[in-house]
């Protein structure tokens, strides 16, 4: 499971940063600014690529904002493939990320993570990160038994 991601500041349009108040999520690492998105944030959000545009969407339903969406931020790849989400009309999205966070371990992500976007009862877009059983390497590295489905990459 990936509980946070970071995206280089330079990858986010200034307009998007201003509109979603992302300045408070800015941190510096090695002299470069990056925007961090944590699931445990008071307002969990994730960047997504949708129809060729970078947007910011609510990350899951951990705070119970929706009464019918699952109260989590992740979904199994097998659940998606088995059609569990079909009734909600999910859209496959890419979550751009340069680094992922799991149990304190920041690990490099080359492109991003697979996700699905579904509407809640008010029509707000909610993104769930897709995960799969962790590889041996990921499990040893992070001590987690779930790992995100990365785009054209596997740790």
């Amino acid at each position, binding site marked *: 499971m990936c509980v946070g991601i970071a995206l*280089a500041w330079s990858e986010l349009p200034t307009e998007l940063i201003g509109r979603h108040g992302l300045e408070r999520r800015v941190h510096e690492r*090695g002299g470069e600014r990056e925007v961090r998105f944590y699931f445990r944030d008071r307002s969990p959000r994730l960047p997504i690529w949708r129809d060729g545009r970078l947007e910011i969407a609510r990350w899951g339903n951990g705070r119970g904002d929706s009464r019918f969406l699952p109260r989590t931020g992740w979904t199994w790849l097998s659940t998606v493939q088995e059609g569990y989400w079909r009734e909600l009309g999910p859209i496959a999205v890419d979550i751009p990320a340069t680094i992922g966070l799991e149990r304190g*371990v920041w690990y490099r992500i080359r492109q991003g993570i697979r996700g699905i976007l579904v509407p809640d009862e008010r029509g707000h877009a909610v993104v769930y990160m897709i995960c799969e059983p962790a590889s*041996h390497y990921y*499990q*040893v590295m992070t001590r987690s038994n779930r790992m995100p489905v990365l785009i054209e990459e596997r740790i």
Partner: protein
Amino acid sequence: MLKAVGHLDADCFYVSAERVRDDFLRGKPVGVLGNQGACVIAKSYEMKAAGVGTGMPIWDALVRCPEGIYVKRDFRWYEVLSRQMLEVVQQWSPRVEYYSIDEFFFAAEPGPDGSFQRLAERIRGAILDRVGVPVTVGIARTRTLAKLISDMAKPFGALAILDRRAEEELLAERPVTEITGIAGRRAARLSPWGILTCLDLAQADRRLVRSLLTATGEALWWELNGEDVRPIQSRRPSHKALSRGGSFGEATHRPTVLYAWLVRNLERLIEELEYHAVAAGRLTVQVIYKDGRSGVGQATLPVPADRFDVLLDVVRPCLRRAWIPRALASHMHLIADNLTARRDTPADLFESPARRARAEAVAQLKREVNARHGRFVLRSAATLPLASIYRDTANEYDICDIRGKICF
């Protein structure tokens, strides 16, 4: 013309190699993980400054450097860059020793201007331009001095020291433990004699050094005094022993998993025996346990062999001897020595020709299938408990699979 020896050492090589293909990592604290993700095998200078050491478990590294970025090792990529660096150095020197994946020794020959300092700078610049890896180059009268100089000049240094006075200044500043080959126990033998710095060692009585550190120590003494007694080896000498093994990543006490690791290590060892066209005369299984204990099993073969069925029959009881029931094992090493050239290996007179022919046919089939479809595609079913290890293609290629290096 003045003869000199150069030593080239890549600066935090695995991290630099990752940065060659990933600009994002530049300037950030980066750790490359090995051993199935359990330990930091290389760290950037930024991570080193935070107190992370090579070989440190990732959980300790996280405490010291919570902002560090961790990357999975990729030895195929590191080998590509290593061989590119080797090619560059070979263009500047007629004799180059491929000492390790990120370290070379070479016969230093200055250009028409006669300057060794400029030679060091040019090689450093050429590697950065053509490979993208920062390196440090030291040039001196001997390889031991050249290595001391490059260690001192890191990172991204280029330094040639060839006059005795400058050498003495350098040696006086360095503790004797900075010489490769002199670690704790040897330093402890020297210390009662007041030999604490490299210069103390260079100025000590040669016979005393030999009595304390044997012929190896005496060779270092000559080298520190400018006598080049350890020649550059542009071809790797024949192996005296071959080994395979390492960390399990996750410690285990399960006999089936230990046996699976034994078989995996054996199949990899056989690949190496076949590559070098040698047969093993003796096999050793060493198992290291998390509580600090270790177990060893060793057996000598009646006839040297490189066949899976024969060697498995030999190593199985070795593992039994090395096994400590219920203790968590973390590492295993399988070592073959008393190597004999395959062509000189006699046939086992007590083995039926039919059995031998069948085993060789299976081995041949295994080689052909794996050559066509990928390493380890066809392997012993005893390795099934390690399915997740085989699923990860990064485990197909390890540092020890990079051939031609003098050192591990």
